[in-house]
């Protein structure tokens, strides 16, 4: 590449000399032909023909002004009207000072007076002008994006920093604009169409943003950056942009995602401002309508925190940073509440972040598929604890574990659970399986098949969060379940909201109709407990009886299974 470039630099440039007088052409040609290839034209008409033919290779035009038919001014005018010809520098050959202003207005770059008194000066001026024009063309080519005419990113950064130097106290906005599913647009309508959309957006940005003293660049394929003095509201501008795009887009629906970050501290690097705008922009992803998202620092901190948790999960599982604890469930149908089972719950004891609530990491793991690994870990730890209690005390209670929505779709689920049971020399009755109600409504046929198989193996299945999903009464009667676990939201409010109590009564009636037991979790007060007992609830779990306990504490309950107030 460098070789090619050097070769290009050493090439003899081509110059066109235009003069209607042969002697003048020859004299000037004789001055410059030592260093340049020289073409000649005797009038404006011939000159324009040569210029159009040689537009890629001409480095300079030396142009007489007064010529018959098409004069030098007309040649300049024609060149000005053509973007391709405009780039070729023109030296006007004149003895007339008054012609200089008009020529300059028409794009002439320099003048040489007739007669040609100083040939070496003429050569030097020709050389300098060609160098300047080539440097400018090179700069121009790198400064602007070839397709859209917006700045390229390097120049954009440069103009941003200059802006900050000249206007240090102006609050600015970093805006990232991205086209939703641009690759699909390209595939459906062709690259030319995609390019047309990019050019449409660019043209809007060039006009609108400049009016507000901002500037724009094309960052990558379908991403635009805008740096602009802070505006309180972009709704109107974006709505105008959408209409502008739609008028060019035809039938295709095009939507944008836009991220905005307001920069208050100019000492902060400009690119981190745009990273923040990018973060905001990515939140509007997958939307079919245009979404404007303003950067929210707290949300970003949360994202970073979540990302850290995700990255450290495998290590945490290996190091057993996750600790399983057990919340007892008491049967309340007899004279005194009796320990009947427990629910395995998880805590993350992080070495530097401290205790992390499951409310933080479980939704995250569910989103990322890590929940399956965590569930497996809990099943195994739970089974190990049950085994230990049986060995130590000769007794234990069944413990319910969560089977997440994702586990249900795992074709190996049954084998996995049986494997754990056998590995710890337990029976399937030692593990209760909790499946959330909404999982049933996702794909009821598949889940019913899976649950039926598990029940056939001897596992008992509890429907968790009952009342929060959308089970139809018709579906409920077919469900292969052993217990309904009322959604905590209802239980929490039974003493403050009579409607919730009525709902609980209804759910208990359904359970009775289905001939399955009813479990209430989240029971914290005596009043809640009494209401539930009176309503016919079978099993209670909650802080009223006990908080979740780590294994050492839980095993003390196994010695005396009755609950003591």
């Amino acid at each position, binding site marked *: 590449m460098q070789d090619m470039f050097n070769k290009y630099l050493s090439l003899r440039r081509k110059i066109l000399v235009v003069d209607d007088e042969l*002697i003048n052409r020859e004299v000037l040609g004789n001055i410059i032909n030592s260093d340049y290839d020289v073409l000649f034209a005797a009038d404006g008409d011939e000159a324009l023909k040569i210029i159009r033919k040689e537009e890629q290779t001409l480095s300079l035009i030396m142009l*007489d002004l007064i010529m*018959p038919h098409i004069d030098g001014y007309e040649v300049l005018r024609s060149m000005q009207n053509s973007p391709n010809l405009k780039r070729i520098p023109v030296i006007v050959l004149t003895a007339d000072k008054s012609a200089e202003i008009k020529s300059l207005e028409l794009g002439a770059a320099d003048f040489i007076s007739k007669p040609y008194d100083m040939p070496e000066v003429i050569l030097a001026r020709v050389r300098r002008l060609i160098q300047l024009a080539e440097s400018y063309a090179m700069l121009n080519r790198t400064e602007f994006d070839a397709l859209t005419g917006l700045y390229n990113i390097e120049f954009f950064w440069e103009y941003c920093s200059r802006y900050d130097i000249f206007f240090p106290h102006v609050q600015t906005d970093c805006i990232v604009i991205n086209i939703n599913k641009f690759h699909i647009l390209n595939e459906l309508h062709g690259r030319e169409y995609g390019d047309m959309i990019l050019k449409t957006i660019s043209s809007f940005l060039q006009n609108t943003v400049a009016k507000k003293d901002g500037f724009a660049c094309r960052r990558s394929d379908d991403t635009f950056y805008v740096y602009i003095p802070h505006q309180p509201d972009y709704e109107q501008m974006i709505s105008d942009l959408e209409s502008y795009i739609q008028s060019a887009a035809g039938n295709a629906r095009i939507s944008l995602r836009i991220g905005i970050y307001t920069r208050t501290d100019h000492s902060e690097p400009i690119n981190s401002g745009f990273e923040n705008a990018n973060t905001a922009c990515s939140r509007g992803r997958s939307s079919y309508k245009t979404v404007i998202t303003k950067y929210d620092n707290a949300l970003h901190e949360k994202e970073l925190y979540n990302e850290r948790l995700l990255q450290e999960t495998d290590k945490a599982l290996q190091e057993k940073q996750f600790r399983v604890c057990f919340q007892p469930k008491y049967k309340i149908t007899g004279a005194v509440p009796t320990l009947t089972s427990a629910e395995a719950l998880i805590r993350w004891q992080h070495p530097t972040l401290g205790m992390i609530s499951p409310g933080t990491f479980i939704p995250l793991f569910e989103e990322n598929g890590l929940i399956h690994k965590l569930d497996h870990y809990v099943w195994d730890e739970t089974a190990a604890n049950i085994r230990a209690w049986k060995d130590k005390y000769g007794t234990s209670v069944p413990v319910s574990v969560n089977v997440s929505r994702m586990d249900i779709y795992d074709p190996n689920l049954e084998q996995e659970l049986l494997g754990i049971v056998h590995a710890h020399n337990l029976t399937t009755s030692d593990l209760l399986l909790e499946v959330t109600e909404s999982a049933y409504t996702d794909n009821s046929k598949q889940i019913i098949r899976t649950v039926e198989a598990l029940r056939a193996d001897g596992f008992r299945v509890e429907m968790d969060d009952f009342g929060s999903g959308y089970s139809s009464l018709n579906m409920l009667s077919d469900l292969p379940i052993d217990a309904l676990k009322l959604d905590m939201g209802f239980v929490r409010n039974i003493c403050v909201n009579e409607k919730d109590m009525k709902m609980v009564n209804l759910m208990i009636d359904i359970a009775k109709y289905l001939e399955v037991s009813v479990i209430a979790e989240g029971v914290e007060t005596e009043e809640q407990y009494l209401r539930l007992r009176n309503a016919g609830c079978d099993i209670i779990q909650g802080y009223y009886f006990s908080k979740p306990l780590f294994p050492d504490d839980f095993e003390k309950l196994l010695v005396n299974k009755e609950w003591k107030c």
Partner: protein
Amino acid sequence: MLTIEKLKAFGANTEEGLKRCVNKEDFYLRMVNKALEGDQIEQLSSALAEKNLDKAFELAHTLKGVLANLALTPLLEPINTMTELLRSRTDTDYSALLLQSQSKWTELKKLAE
């Protein structure tokens, strides 16, 4: 045949003329000969006779450029004066200037024979 000496004797500023031709004597003399092949003086005379001042200006202007480049001073002087008058399309009697030009042109042509 033209030589530098003959041109010098005619009154041309050959030093200037040669400098403009990058000191190539052959080239300089060739250009002067070429200039003498034309009939611009006659054309200029006709244009003035027809009172076509636009055409007369174009012709005088072109001729002025050539003569200046070749530093043919005795010819350049009357043509230069005519060019400036014609630039503003001055309708005046050009016969004396024209006569001076024609006489110098003829003189130079004779030198070239």
